[in-house]
């Protein structure tokens, strides 16, 4: 199998990753995302930002579960707005929602198998894929336990297992480490690095340590706009260059980038108002 490790724009052979142009998402009257342009290639991308910044809105649109009100989303070379191509995208996508209910009475195995069925995995390979996915999140010994009997951190890991069961090319994790204990988080970062070697992985999180440890790129979102893009190292360097608050370089970088963004957009906001 050949892996396209570089998202070469000139080669149309195997389109990888995600391209977002002019994305706009509205919830009733509030604007969750406003003219966002982003590119994600293979690797692990950290999505940072304060509460209500638009991280979940972005992930939900990328997961094709929410409709954008404007702009274009291209995933693995398919236009995600096109109903007929959407199935093809979803077949090769994994998504961990911030919160997901579980079906009453389902065991871990049944839950993951149900999602595999939703993703139209071939019946012959599903049982093995389910066991492998559950083992990868460290729940092999609880595979036949009812989901409702598990602790919060374990349910989170069941969610991770259902997201990776179809060996997706694009993975979207919304707050995957919430509720995991420190050891589990370390293991999850290891899994992230493994997944990022071949797939495009986007992780929304509040924990900047996760980003520093496991991500190859960082995107900082604030007020529905992209505030910063770079690598964890460049974000940390930004923090070192300023005297912002924070207990480690990357936290300082996070605060510095946010403040710089907040200082900037007065003109942008004024322009936006004028345009309306």
């Amino acid at each position, binding site marked *: 199998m050949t892996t396209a490790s570089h998202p070469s724009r000139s080669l149309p052979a195997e389109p990888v990753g995600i391209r977002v142009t002019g994305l706009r998402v509205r919830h009733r009257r509030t604007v969750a995302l406003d003219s966002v342009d982003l590119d994600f290639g293979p690797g692990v991308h950290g999505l940072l930002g304060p509460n209500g910044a638009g991280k979940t809105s972005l992930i939900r649109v990328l997961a094709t*579960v929410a409709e954008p009100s404007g702009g274009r989303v291209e995933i693995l070379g398919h236009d995600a707005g096109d109903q007929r191509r959407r199935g093809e995208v*979803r077949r090769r996508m994994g998504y961990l929602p911030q919160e997901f209910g579980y079906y*009453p009475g389902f065991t871990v195995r049944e839950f993951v198998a*149900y*999602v595999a*069925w*939703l993703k*139209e995995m071939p*019946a012959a390979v599903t*049982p093995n894929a389910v066991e492998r996915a559950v083992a990868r999140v460290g729940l092999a010994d609880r595979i036949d336990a009812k989901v409702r009997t598990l602790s919060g951190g374990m349910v989170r890991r069941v969610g991770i297992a259902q997201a990776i069961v179809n060996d997706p090319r694009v993975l979207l994790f919304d707050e995957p480490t919430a509720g995991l204990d420190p050891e589990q988080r370390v293991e999850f970062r290891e899994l992230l690095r493994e997944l990022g070697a071949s797939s495009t992985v986007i992780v929304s999180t509040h924990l900047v340590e996760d980003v520093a440890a496991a991500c190859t790129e960082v995107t900082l979102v604030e007020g529905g706009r992209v505030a910063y893009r770079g690598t964890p190292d460049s974000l940390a360097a930004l923090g070192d260059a300023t005297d912002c608050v924070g207990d480690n370089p990357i936290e300082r970088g996070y605060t510095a980038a946010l403040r710089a963004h907040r200082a900037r957009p007065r003109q942008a906001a004024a322009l936006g108002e004028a345009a309306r």
Partner: protein
Amino acid sequence: MSSFGGFLYARSRTVPRTLAALAGTVGFAVWAAERMDTYLDTDQRAPIVALSPLLAAAVIGVSLHTPSDELDRTAVRPWWPRRLTQLLALTALAAALLPLAVLGDATTFGPPAMIRNTLGCVGVTAAASVVLGARLSWLPPFCYVGSVVLASSGVRGPAVTVWAWPMQPGPQPGAWLAAGAAFVAGTALYAVRGARPEGPRT
């Protein structure tokens, strides 16, 4: 495994529990019809014909709930065929079994009226599940049918067979038209839109 997947889908929508509840509803209707000695006076079957389809529709409506709408939305296939199959199959079952409670005279609150009311109530409930969410979908039809039962006795006029369709004794075309329209519209609306998301993210 696709049949296993279908089985998991049925379980995710609590179809086994729904079947048990429908069987209970039919049993209750049959028991009530016998207790009320309805074979002596078929007009006495009116409450059974008005209320048991309502209970069956409530059971079906609640089964349209999905605990994980967010994950269901990532399905590769469009949802409408599965939704339509589920709703039609459960409705067909209820419409086939409930008339057992009112066998005999077909013109006064007999099997045709029972089938008509089942279709009508399911239609209103399905539409309510789209607007209100599946768990409260029984509420609007209960209010409507309840008001009709209370208000329609003694009212005369050409429009009454339409708006009071749950209380019409038999083959009135207006009642069939209203119940049929409710069924077609409610079913189509539910198949296309699905129940309103409830639970973790609302």
